[in-house]
Every structure is written in C-alpha cells, then in structure tokens.
C-alpha cells in the first residue's frame, strides 16, 4: 500500500524528467556554463579545476605524505589510487548535497512564476559534480592503468557501469530530498555544511576501516556513504568485489533515497510557493 504510493510518485517523477529531457539537457548545459560564463576560458574551467585538484593530491600523496599511507595488502595499485578512489566519490557527494539543498530555494522566482517541471531543479544540480567527478575519474583511471600496468582494466569495465548507476540514483534521490526539505527546514543547509566538514574524516577515505580503534569504528558504518565509498574502492583500487555487502547496501540506499526523495518532492512541490 505504502509501497505503491511511493512507486507511483517515483514513476511520476521519472516521467516528468523523461518528458522534459530536452529541457533538462538545455538546463544542464546552462548549469555547467553558469559558473564560468563571460570568463575567458569559459567551459574550459570545468576541466581545469578537477585536473589541478587531482595533480595537487597526486603531488601531496606521492611527495609529501609518502610515509603515512604506503603498503595496502591485496592490491597492485599504490596508496594514491586508494586515496583518490575515496576522495572522488566523496567530492561528488558533498557537491551534490551542497548545491541541491539550494536548488529550489534559490530559484524561488521560477517556482512561483512559471509552470515549470520543478523536479528538474534539483536534478540539474547533479551536472556540475558529475562533470567534476568524470574528469577526475578519467585522470585516476589513467593513473591506475599506468601504475598497475593495465591489470585493473577488467574491474573498470565490469564494475564502473553499475556503480555509476547506483551512485547516480543515490545522488538524484538525495538531491530531490534535500531540495524540498530545505524549503521547509531552513537550518538544513547548516547541518549539511557541518556534515560535509567532518565527512572527509568519518568516512573511510583517508584511512582503512581497520586502521582506527574498534570503539569508534561503528561511526563509519552509520553513514550510508561509507558503503558507496567501499564500492568505489572495490572497483578502482582492489579491482575485485571483496565483500558483497557494501554493494547490496548501496543499492538498497539508492532505491530508498530515490523513492523517498521522489515521494516527498511530489507531495510537497505544490506547497513550495507558500513558503518561498
């Protein structure tokens, strides 16, 4: 019963996106160029930013913090690959959370003045983070192939497509959820900021899960994003699925987030105008 209403809302949401896909595409194009419009290099910055960041990380982890992360058993790749395979999804998650929360509130004019498929507002905020992550990923894959001499390639080919789908779904649901919650809970943005500040440390990104005291280890497993990061590390670093549970849990969260986000968005979107 409850499930059918959720499924219905989800279907409604997906349909709205599908029907307006051309508009979504135009909005995404605009979203990507928005930050750099009337800049000399314009869309070029979309590539320069992640590349510079990746090079900085590479320099830091190979030249400055060499001793901190060295040998990780069970992988042909080096520590840099491990670190980046956690950092890249985390950057995407944090960018989506930060932007999508403002996606509805920041477009109050459109919400109030136009008959417009509002679902597109949070969804289009995925574009920037995905672009950033995509460029970083290409960099990392190139580096990983070089370091491992190509042995990790099958993992990329088999693992990446499903993982990208799972991640997209999770983030889309999250964007819908945060986008509409922010309308009613204005403090949300601050909670998100706090979470993002500590997020790099409470997720197993810069360390291995078993490298921290057992007493605080459950914290890692409280966050749904830890499992997603495990999955990314499986594909990009280990080159194999070492443990099936992160995949199952991530998939479950993807479905949960998306259905919950779609449901709440569809139910509340008619009331946005009253609160903006």
């Amino acid at each position: 019963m409850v499930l059918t209403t959720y499924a219905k809302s989800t279907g409604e949401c997906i349909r709205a996106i599908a029907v307006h896909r051309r508009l979504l595409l135009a909005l995404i194009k605009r979203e990507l160029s928005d930050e750099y419009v009337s800049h000399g290099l314009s869309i070029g910055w979309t590539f320069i930013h992640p590349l510079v960041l990746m090079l900085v990380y590479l320099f830091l982890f190979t030249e400055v913090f060499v001793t901190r992360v060295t040998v990780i058993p069970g992988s042909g790749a080096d520590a840099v690959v491990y670190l980046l395979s956690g950092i890249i999804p985390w950057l995407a998650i944090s960018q989506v959370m930060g932007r999508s929360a403002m996606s509805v509130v920041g477009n109050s004019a459109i919400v109030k003045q136009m008959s417009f498929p509002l679902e597109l507002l949070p969804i289009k905020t995925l574009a920037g983070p995905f672009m950033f992550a995509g460029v970083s990923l290409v960099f990392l894959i190139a580096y990983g192939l070089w370091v491992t001499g190509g042995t990790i390639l099958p993992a990329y080919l088999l693992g990446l497509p499903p993982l990208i789908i799972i991640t997209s779904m999770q983030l889309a649901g999250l964007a819908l959820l945060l986008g509409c919650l922010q309308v009613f809970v204005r403090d949300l943005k601050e909670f998100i900021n706090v979470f993002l500040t500590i997020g790099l440390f409470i997720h197993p990104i810069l360390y291995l899960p078993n490298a921290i005291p057992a007493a605080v280890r459950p914290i890692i497993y409280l966050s749904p994003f830890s499992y997603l990061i495990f999955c990314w590390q499986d594909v990009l670093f280990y080159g194999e699925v070492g443990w099936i549970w992160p995949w199952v849990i991530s998939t479950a969260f993807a479905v949960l987030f998306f259905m919950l986000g779609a449901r709440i968005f569809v139910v509340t979107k008619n009331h946005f105008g009253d609160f903006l």
Partner: protein
Amino acid sequence: MIASPTIMQALELGRPPEIAICLDSVSKAYKLYDRPFNFFKEALTGRSYHRDKVVLSDISLTLKRGEILGIIGRNGAGKSTLLKIIAGTLAPSQGAVTVKGRVAAILELGTGFNPNYSGRDNVILSALMRGMSEDAVRRKFDGIVAFAGLEDVIDEPFHTYSSGMQARLAFAAATAVDADVLIIDEALSSGDLRFAARSLRRIHEICQSGVTALFVSHVPYHVMQLCSRVIWIDDGRIRMDGDPIEVARAYEYEMLQAVARDEGRVLTGPSAVKATQEIETSTSAPHQAPPPAPHRPLRPVSTDAPIVPTPDVGGVIKTDPDAPATQPSNIEAIDPIEENVGAEAAGDTIQVSTGGVVEASTVDQDSVNDVSVDEPLVNGSEIQERSERASIRRVSTGLYRISKVQFSDKTGRHTNIFKFGEPMQIEVLYERLASELPGQSCGLAVTFSRVDDFAAVMHFNTSDVYSNEQIRSYFNKALESRLIRAGTIEAIIEPLQIRAGEYYVSIGILADQSQAQEFYDYLHCRYRIKVLANGFDEPCVFYPVVQWTNGPIKVVK
C-alpha cells in the same frame, strides 16, 4: 469588445462553447507557520501548527474557451494569487481547479533570465522553460527578436541592455509561447510608449487567436480594451462580474472613494443612500413621463453555472460576446443617463427653481430620429437597485450636496442628447447641509469621459483661472450671501467641441478657489450624454475652434 472567433464559431455551430477553466469554490489561505519546520510537525502529527491568512475565499468562476477575462482589484486583493492558482504554481486550500489545455503564465517578466548570457541564449532558454519545443523556438526566434526590436544587439550580454530593452525582450519571449490558456499579470507596464502600444496589440492578437486569456491590470483602460468580461476581486472575493465597462467604472469609483478617504474627506453614509432612495421613489411616483431606461444588468456574482447571455436592454454600444449576434450594430438609444437628467433631486430643502425634473421623453425626436426611446416602466426593485448604485458613486463632505443636475441644449430644453458644435448648458443645483458657514462659495468641476474606455476627453473647473473667465461670473452670486441654503451654478459650453459619441459626465462641487482639490460633493460618471454628429464626423474626440485665413497666393501669369 470583439468576440473571439472560437465563441462565434461555436455559437454558429449551435453547441455551447467548451469550458476552458473552471474554478469551483476555490479558497486559498496561506498557512503561516512560525517556523517552517512546523509544516512537518503538522504533517507528521496531524495537529495544527499554523495560522491561516485567507487570501481568496469561495471563488467560483467558469471561463469558456476564447473568453478574455480581465481581473481588477486593489493591491493585495488576491488577483495574483488567483492567477497563480490557475497557472498551477500555487495549490488552492479548498475547492477544485480545472484548466484544460496548456497554460502559459506571464506572471513576472524576465524570470529565468541570466544577465551574463546573451539575449539570444536567454530567449532560447526561457522559451524552453516556458514549455516551447526546440523547433518552435527556432521557428519563432527571429520574430521574437524583431518584435523586441533588438536585432542588432541580440548576441550581446543581457546586462548591457537598458531596462526597457530587457523588458521588451522578456515580453516578446514570454508572449511567443503557444498555449491554450494565457495568463498575464501586469505585463504591459514596461517599455516606452511605442512598445506599450505594440505589446497591447500583441496581446490583442493573442486574444483574438482563440486562446482563453486571463489578464490582470490596474489600468481599467487596458482591461476594457482587451476583455470580454471583467471580474473585480476585493478582499479575496468576486465583488463584481460582468461587462468590462460597468465593472471598471464601479472599480474606478471605489478607488476614488478610497483616495477621498485617505485625504480625510467624509463619505456619504448609509443615511444619505436612504434619502436618495426615498426621494427617487417619491419623485417617480406620478409617472408623468416614462422613467429612465434600466441600466445594463449586472451579472450576479456567482457564476457556478455558465453565464447566460444578457440581453443589452440599455442599448449601449457594446458587443457582448455571450450575446447572440442579433444586436443592431448601429447606435441605439442611449442609456438615458442612469437616472436621467435632473433626477437627482434629494433633500426636502431644495428649491427647485424652474423646469423640474425632465425625463428622457423630452428628447427632441426630430433631431435624433435614429434614437428610439423605448423604455419600460420602472419598478420597485429597479429603483432600489438604482439608488444603491447611485449611492456608491458619490463622494461627499456633507457640507454641500448636489441636489440636481440638468443638461439643456440651445433651445433650453432639458435633454441628454446634444449636437456637436451647438451649445450645452449644465445647471447644477446644490444645497448646503452643514450649519457652519463655508469659507468659499461653490465652484464647479466637470469631466467628460468617453463611455468606451473612460478616457477623460474634456474637463473644466470653474475655480481655476482661465484667461477669459466667463464661467466665473455665474457663481459670484453665490458669494453674495453667506446665509444661502441652496444655489445654482450654470455653465455654458459653447460650442460643444467633443465629437459624436457617448460620454459619462462627472460633476463635482468644490470650494471656489484656485487649485481647490477637495470636493464638497462629487458624482462620478453619474450622467451620460450623447453627442450627435453634425456635419462630417472626424475620427477624433475634440475639435478645436480654429480660425484661418488664406495667405497671399502667387498666380502664374
């Protein structure tokens, strides 16, 4: 207003026009939450955590396809909320909204425009956001730019445009959308005069193309020009619904009243209404002459049912799109001034000097043989309604009161029909109501407004100085005695320089003092006169008195 083709076609085909918009007792109350989070508390617990702010209450409205509805009302009356509910950007708290077809809402110009992008990019994206297909955008793009007149600068960043250019482009882009229902909120007030005219024409075209349109404006003129029906929203309710001119007139009057209130002037209270009513009943009792024609029937406020065509009893030159096209196209008998000439007798203290009440039957049948005076006898309910309507059109301080107004032509006959170029005399009888003595005697202010659109075409004011002030001498008499209880002001307009047509006449008495602003008594568009053509009819409203001579001429030898 010209009926839109769809309705006419539908009428010809003998089937009722399709309903495009239907609002069934729609109410909107904004829920005010002290904290937005209370919305969730409410959703979760089912307990109420909000206060209601009612914006619209029980609005029922049915619009047929092709109908052009104007919405007027003061700020905060709920006009925009209503539009947003129909546009679907707000959900009603109660009631049902049915809108058939695609809706294009122009609630605010320039939504979604980014100043950093070029005009081209902005037009394309905003058109897409308004639901246009890419093909349609490509097809219409040149037309949009041409309409805005920005061909030369369309690729430059939007922020380099002047605000007028920005508004023009936004308007052009917004109105290019194909839609079945078009909603426009105050979009005409931008741009220079030329653009304003052009955008009005654009909206006109759109309205003619058969879409159903809703149109909010503070300018009654626009509403009257564009709409086939007007509703007046006041305090979230439909105050009046019907013929554009009637509704706009009532609205305009109320706005004047509000202005008067702001300026601290007293208004006629209910007692005055009652007095008027009694007097009118008593004066029309003998029925010596046919009483005035009934005025246009106003539609009842509730429009749950489809609107029944209202026959045009008054014979005003108007085409009601609902009415079958059986109406004669030529000008019929004018609605002989709601209450007719001089029917405004009130108060037992007036001294009616001469003539008495003159009825429309005194209209010279020879000079106006195309006029058929065919009026039913007045009945009680009509008097009742008439005096109610009369009462709302009066702004008074209670110091003086206009007791009677008479219009007469060159022969001295009381009439409301005049010929262009001939003299017109206006005689205003007033009485003093207050016991205290005013500082000045009374002056007169008269405005003629064209019936079609309320444009004021002629105004004069006896208390403002004009070089050869003939009129002034008329009321020096009133100055002579401060004990006067009543008096008369006569003004002669000779020649009558407004062209053929029908005009409302507003009459006010005020302190006879230059730049006097406050009326002792003011009757807004209370009288209606008709001016007949005399000689050639010119497409203008005012004909100046011109003297000319032929200068020296050269002749070929």
